[in-house]
């Protein structure tokens, strides 16, 4: 049979963000794959050199929509290390809380995407509906669903009240119940097993050689988690298990993420119940003494590493961001070769790729549109009315 070369991306229904895979097919099997990146380069590292430390905080947050807290926390850890600032304990605890809520939100999102990529739309619809619960938590705590902006240099911007705490715990309890159901479903549904077992094999040696990180590496049996290896924030005080799985395939990645969800719920409750008292932020000078440092962080997708060099002014000399996806992408070509075309979307999705993180940062649009502020209730009302005009009534929900 003659070979066909199929372009997967930059625009393709299986990809949520632009990237390109050229697949050489022999019938249904893949004999060669190349990964092309760079469709999303925004020049953020250059942009960061022209902004002050506090402005950069909001730039770095926009590296990625899902792991916005991961990037800001890594960045801020660097800045605080260089500024020799003692961040209050309560602020660290709140950051940890957000980190874990973010992990829950990211893993639930991934579970849905994985379901969608294997053609299991029901799982997708279910998990994304439940993900709203954790987004509600984040919104209640920070005011935003995605870009929480909770971090500030020297601490956090908002405190947590008793009602908020109760609200979060209520929602987490609901999510624990749902997640147990999904774990049961993922382990028992035969078509899920058929689609994920022995798909996208990544032996541990290859995973190490190609620098895989996060759940991708942990599903290959490599016990690596920055939270355990070099505890940051308050992780050394928390009780959690490092989840690994030794099947080296997509099924393993599914199990690792599902079980990590359970650990995250546990940690969220632990942090909330033992929130230290005290201030939530300290003042940090605008200018930061010359120096350089590097810190890593366990983002939902894997190890996120930032390098920061200060030159004594209020702007950084050099800021380097390496998102987990870039480290994992080198393994994807390996995982796809010899596999089936039908598995490609799933294999790509299994590393939970985030292209915006990977290709970063030059040009911004200075045009300002008409400004109008809508509250949540107003937005909700507006959308309900709009759908009513189209014949769908959401008020019953």
């Amino acid at each position, binding site marked *: 049979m003659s070979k066909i070369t199929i372009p997967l991306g930059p625009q393709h229904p299986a990809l949520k963000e632009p990237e390109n895979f050229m697949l050489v097919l022999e019938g249904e099997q893949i004999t060669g794959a*190349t990964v*092309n*990146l*760079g469709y999303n*380069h925004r*020049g953020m*590292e*250059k*942009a960061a050199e*022209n902004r002050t430390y506090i402005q950069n905080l909001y730039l770095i947050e926009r590296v990625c929509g899902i792991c916005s807290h991961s990037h800001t926390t890594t960045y801020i850890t660097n800045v605080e290390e260089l500024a020799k600032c003692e961040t209050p304990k309560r602020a660290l605890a709140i950051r940890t809380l957000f980190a874990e809520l973010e992990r829950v939100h990211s893993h639930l999102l991934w579970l849905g995407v994985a379901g969608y990529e294997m053609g299991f739309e029901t799982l997708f619809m279910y998990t994304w509906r439940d993900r709203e619960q954790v987004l509600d938590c984040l919104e209640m705590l920070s005011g935003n669903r995605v870009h929480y902006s909770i971090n500030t240099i020297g601490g956090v911007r908002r405190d947590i009240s008793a009602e908020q705490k109760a609200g979060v715990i209520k929602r987490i309890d609901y999510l624990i119940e749902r997640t147990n159901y999904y774990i049961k479903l993922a382990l028992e549904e035969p078509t899920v097993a058929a689609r994920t077992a022995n798909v996208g094999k990544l032996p541990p040696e290859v995973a*190490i*050689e*190609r*620098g*895989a*990180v996060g759940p991708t590496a942990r599903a290959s049996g490599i016990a*690596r988690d*920055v939270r355990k*290896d*070099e505890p940051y924030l308050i992780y050394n005080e928390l009780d959690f298990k490092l989840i690994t799985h030794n099947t080296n395939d997509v099924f393993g990645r599914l199990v690792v993420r599902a079980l990590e969800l359970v650990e995250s719920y546990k940690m969220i409750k632990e942090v909330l119940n033992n929130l230290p008292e005290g201030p939530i932020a300290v003042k940090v000078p605008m200018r930061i003494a010359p120096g*350089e*440092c*590097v810190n*890593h962080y366990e983002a939902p997708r894997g*190890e996120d*590493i930032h*390098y920061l*060099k200060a030159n004594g002014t209020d702007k950084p000399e*050099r800021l*380097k961001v*390496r998102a987990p996806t*870039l*480290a994992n*992408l*080198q*393994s994807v070509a390996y995982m796809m070769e010899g596999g089936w075309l039908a598995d490609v979307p799933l294999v790509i999705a299994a590393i939970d790729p985030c292209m915006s993180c990977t*290709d*970063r940062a*030059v*040009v911004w649009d200075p045009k300002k549109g008409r400004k109008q502020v809508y509250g949540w209730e107003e937005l909700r009302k507006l959308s309900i009315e709009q759908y009513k005009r189209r014949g769908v009534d959401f008020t019953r929900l």
Partner: protein
Amino acid sequence: MSEFAREEKVKADIEAKFAGAVTNASVQRKNRVWLELEPSRLPELLAWLKAAGFDHLATVTGFDEGENLGAHYHMTDTKMLVNVKVKTPRTNPVLPSVLKVFPGALSYELELQDMLGIKVEGLPPGRRYPLDDDFPTDQYPLRKDWKVEEYLAKNPLFPTEAK
């Protein structure tokens, strides 16, 4: 010596093994070792570190120090970070490739080449990353003398329409 025993040991081992090539080695704090290296010994040191358990090249940070360009190679065994700094003159910036040791470093090295104009010897041919195919090949955005405004003045994003 007492507080950071492990860090000091790694540092001393590297200094003993690569005597003459390593300068400015220091222990910054717990789990952080910094050192500077002759670029020619880079693949060798990385291979040695890999064998010593530092088998994860976390990332490569390119930098521009004016006279010199260069890169930090952040090696880690997930606990300790060993940051290897190499410098190369701005007039003829060349670094050896470490792909033989770390095949996963491809995108980091391509980035050095595209963003800073450091020629990496031993890279396989292929598409460029991370910049666009139509971005001029003689411009290196991460160098300090490269300004967004100047570039935009020369290459407007959208042709301005006459009204």
